[in-house]
């Protein structure tokens, strides 16, 4: 009795409801598939750089500590000789160093001092200062979970940007250097 009261027109459109729901779920899941779960948002953006003081990579400078990051905009690159993607991005860092636009620091993560030293000798040293984080303890304070990682730090020592994984020219220009320039202009 009740069903008849709805009329045939209502019946015809009703079957579209589950279809529409399915469509919405499918689109939601499709978008979810394109997200990059390895891009973990850094909890440290906007906070001061951690307290650390590291010995240099053998033969490469006087060491690297928190105080080095105060007073100018800096880029901190986490690297290791055992890290293959680091070799991929390394020429770009050499370019940055030659350009002299920003202070570049190297945090050498869980490396043997002699390996890191040889690696820099072979591929060139773009870093003003290097710090050897032998145990990875400073890395934990920096929230490092993979190598390479790159941080942009402002003149007050506040972390402004983090990139996980090797950089390419696009990331260098559009993310890192553009943020650096913005911060330098302030």
């Amino acid at each position: 009795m009740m069903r008849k009261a709805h009329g045939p027109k209502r019946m015809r459109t009703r079957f579209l409801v589950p279809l529409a729901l399915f469509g919405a779920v499918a689109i939601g899941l499709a978008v979810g598939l394109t997200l990059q779960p390895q891009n973990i948002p850094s909890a440290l953006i906007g906070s001061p750089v951690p307290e650390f003081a590291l010995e240099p990579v053998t033969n490469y400078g006087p060491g690297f500590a928190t105080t080095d990051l105060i007073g100018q905009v800096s880029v901190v690159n986490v690297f290791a000789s055992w890290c293959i993607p680091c070799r991929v991005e390394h020429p770009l860092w050499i370019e940055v160093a030659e350009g002299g636009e920003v202070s570049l620091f190297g945090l050498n993560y869980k490396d043997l001092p002699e390996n890191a030293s040889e690696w820099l000798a072979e591929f060139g040293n773009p870093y003003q200062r290097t710090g050897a984080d032998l145990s990875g303890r400073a890395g934990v304070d920096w929230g490092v979970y993979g190598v390479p990682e790159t941080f942009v730090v402002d003149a007050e020592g506040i972390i402004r940007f983090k990139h996980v994984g090797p950089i390419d020219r696009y990331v260098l220009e559009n993310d890192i250097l553009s943020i650096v320039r913005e911060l330098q202009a302030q």
Partner: protein
Amino acid sequence: MTRTAILAIAVTVWCFAGPAVLAQGLIDLPLADPGLEARAIALHKRLRCLVCQNQSIHESNAELARDLRVVVRERLTIGNTDEQTVQFLVDRYGDWVLLSPPFKPATLLLWLGPLVILLTASAAAAVFLRRGLPNETPQPLTDDERAQVQDLLRKP
């Protein structure tokens, strides 16, 4: 004070470890105090290994997981509470390091979504089932109908 404690632990570990292990990270040993170690393990199970993503640092063999296990033990050793220890890692790695996401505005949908779906579906089911029920008691057959039925039943 905490930094000196960490340094002392690190230096001790390094002295025992020698350069071969040095480059591979911190040494992962159970704490001598069984109560503290039990707390450490309970915390390890709540924390995500960030490189393997769906394992806890208790289960994972990844180097980072080992480092984080050591950090948890360090924090407990210097007298941090469980919550302080967890917060220490959240400050560095974000909520992502927690296997169970915290309840806060950004995660409302995550926590309440299933409940909302359940309630909506139950309400819809209730409405549907009610509508399906006969809303009047069947009328007894008229004499004519009764005769027709009798007629049909009598046919071979």
